[in-house]
């Protein structure tokens, strides 16, 4: 049984070479924004430009380019906007860390408020409720 499986796998290998390139193209295309239909990746889009860009990705990968080289090629032409995952740099710090900073600020505020309320003791439960309302 195992030998049969091995035979099957070996027989399937040449056919697999193409699908893996295709999978690679799709995986990389999923990181690239379609500029015509901005909320789609070029993997999803059927716009002519998306198809052309996918062909570029395929050609370059087939020619031995690394993922980063392909992404750099796109960024050189279309800017960071083409990346679905924006790079971390000073102009995107707010985008990357803003939500975390806001969460921390909110938690800090909550902590301070709760600390302020504690000395009033248990008896003021109902007063606490009106505060919260």
């Amino acid at each position, binding site marked *: 049984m195992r030998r049969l499986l091995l035979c099957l796998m070996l027989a399937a290998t040449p056919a697999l070479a193409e699908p893996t390139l295709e999978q690679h193209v799709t995986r990389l295309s999923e990181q690239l924004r379609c*500029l*015509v239909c*901005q909320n789609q990746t070029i993997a999803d889009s059927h716009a002519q430009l998306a198809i*052309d*860009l996918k062909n570029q990705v395929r050609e370059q990968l087939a020619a031995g380019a690394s993922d980063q080289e392909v992404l750099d090629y796109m*960024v050189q032409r*279309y*800017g*960071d906007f083409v990346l679905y995952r924006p790079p971390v740099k000073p102009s995107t710090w707010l985008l990357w860390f803003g939500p975390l900073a806001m969460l921390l600020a909110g938690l800090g505020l909550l902590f301070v408020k709760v600390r302020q309320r504690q000395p009033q003791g248990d008896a003021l439960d109902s007063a606490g409720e009106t505060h919260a309302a």
Partner: protein
Amino acid sequence: MRRFLFPLGLFFSLVCLLGAGLRLNPQEIPSPLIGKPAPAFALAQLALPDKTFGPQDMQGQVWLLNVWASWCTACRQEHPLLLELAGRNQVSIVGMDYMDARADGAKWLEKHGNPYRLSILDTDGKVGIDYGVYGVPETFVIDKRGVIRLKLAGPVTAEIIEKKLLPLIKELNRA
């Protein structure tokens, strides 16, 4: 009353932020090519198939590269303005007929008028990709040294020509 002021202020600043966001044009993507040399190419001319043209042919001149196509409806909107701009003889406009067939492009220019000093044919859109073209029309302003100074996506309007293009062209011509 006072304790509502803070959340209310927060709410209004959020409204202002979102309101400002609504006014932005998501189609306007800043081009990374501004300040960089115009990518080189040698493409066959639309009218003279056996002659090529490249950005180096315009060295020493301020010029516009206008991307158009016979299938592009927005191009029809800006076309009269380009004809008028060409008539003022202040700047050369080179057309790039993008993903188009030679016969269709030529017929279109015959029908609508030709504001271009010459047009080149980018049949497969490869040069378009080098220029980061993602829609037609697009217009690039290229200076005497062959550096891209401005990119406009979408049709130019009379206002853009008066307030942006002409002042920039004047400034670049002085340099």
